[in-house]
């Protein structure tokens, strides 16, 4: 299931993302190095999901740039809540959706493609689930299913939005093993996470964000007590007297 890797990173230059006129990500610069494994952490409302969506090309920057090295294939794992889990579709068909970048809307899937999807289901521990409707799966099983779709997608850059939320210990251990495998294969992985122990244990790089980037670098240096306090101080409430930002673009 591994094609030749095309090591790819993403560079942010003075990136600002907004909802309306309110900044969600504010003047952030830095580099997700090719093959790096980075955790994005920060308080609720810190702009983590918005950043991931922008990296996936789903949110247009207000100012600044997002530049990929080369033409990498990007895959996004949205939060579980963004999915219509009552939709009447079988598990195998969901995994086959990962073939979209190769097949598009019209090309037919081959027997090989089908076999690949079945293998991916087995790799996430869902063998025998091919014909099960998605609606009958638990939250953890659904997350496994979406990881199978990511496996089939075979992307160079993987963006994971809270991949281990609402998932039991065994499932998150299994999924973490896949993330480690991807890292070992030279893929670039960026994951939004809340469990700081997990981040310290498993993720070499960390971006600590609270609209502004508080710290970005090796996890031990980014997650110092001082930095964490700074992130927690981020004013979650809007200020009605907020002035126009005059930081040079």
């Amino acid at each position, binding site marked *: 299931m591994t094609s030749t890797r095309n090591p790819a990173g993403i560079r942010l230059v003075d990136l600002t993302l907004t909802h309306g006129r309110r900044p969600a990500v504010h003047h952030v610069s830095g580099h997700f190095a090719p093959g790096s494994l980075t955790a994005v952490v920060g308080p609720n409302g810190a702009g983590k999901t918005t950043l991931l*969506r922008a990296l*996936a*090309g*789903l949110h247009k920057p207000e100012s600044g740039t997002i530049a990929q090295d080369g033409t990498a294939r*990007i*895959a*996004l794992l*949205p939060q579980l809540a*963004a*999915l*219509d889990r009552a*939709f*009447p*579709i*079988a598990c195998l*068909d*969901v995994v086959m*959706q990962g073939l*979209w*970048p190769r097949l598009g*809307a*019209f090309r037919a899937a081959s027997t090989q493609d089908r076999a690949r999807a079945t293998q991916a289901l087995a790799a996430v521990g869902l063998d025998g689930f091919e014909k099960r*409707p*998605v609606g009958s799966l638990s939250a953890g099983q659904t997350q496994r299913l979406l990881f199978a*779709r990511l496996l089939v*997608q075979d992307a160079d850059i993987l963006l994971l939005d809270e991949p281990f939320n609402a998932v039991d210990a065994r499932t998150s251990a299994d999924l973490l093993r896949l993330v480690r495998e991807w890292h070992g294969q030279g893929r670039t992985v960026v994951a939004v996470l809340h469990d700081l122990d997990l981040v310290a244990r498993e993720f070499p790089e960390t971006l600590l964000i609270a609209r502004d980037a508080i710290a970005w670098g090796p996890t031990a240096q980014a997650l110092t007590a001082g930095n964490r306090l700074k992130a927690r101080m981020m004013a979650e409430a809007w200020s009605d007297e907020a002035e126009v930002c005059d930081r040079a673009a």
Partner: protein
Amino acid sequence: MHDLLIAPFVEFGFLRRALVGCLALSVSAPVLGVFLVLRRMSLTADVLAHGAMPGVALAFLLAGFSAPALWFGGLVAGLLVAVGAGALSRATGGREDATLAALYLLALGAGVAIISIGGGGGVDLAHILFGSVLGVDDPALLLMAGVATLTLAVLALGWRPLVLECFDPSFAAAVGARGGAWHLVFQALVVLNVISAFQALGTLMAVGLMMLPAIASRHWARQVSGMAYAAVGIAVLASVTGLLVSYHVDVPTGPAIVLIAGGIWAVSVLVGPVDGLAHRLLRRRHLAG
């Protein structure tokens, strides 16, 4: 038996036309209905049918009783409501259903006002809105068949993106599936199907043939494709039965077909294999694993 089921169609040309028209509608409209149900847009078709009214009324006022003019007017007005609601809610961040409700109420008011300015419109306009089996002439039949063919072709091509856009819109956007564009095409098809049913069922009843089989199909299949087949089957059954009932009992076609479709829905809710009420009442013992 022959007298009851076959003879009316052999004897009367207008019934044969209505049958062909309704069967054409039955293979396309319910499939659109399935997607409307899955997108939680079950009421949208109804809204679009009402939204088409000022266009029909205006066309009637300007061109008199000319079928192509009425279709065109209805199509333009329906598309404006459908596309306008989507675009407006995306631009202003409001809920699409709320914008749709606002536009359709506006359209309905405008429609009634235009009709009263035009002197009431008379019986012909009532036929357009509520349908008459006698109204299925050659152009109407061609339109119905053409719309059904177009709908099936587009659905076949767009099946994958439409399913993806319903199930996981952010994944669809991330892989560049153009879900939004397909959604627009889909809405245009809904309007076209409603308009094409003008003569046979009336705009308002046409929605019944689109939605009732789709809503009932949920009780017969666990996957989208199965639901689509079930919905078409139910619609065909409702069309044939409804036309016969309408002939024998002397009820207008539109309500007859919709009532039969509604009856099939009720039966599906009661005894359908997926989530039917009867299964709950049987209280069979649980499985071992």
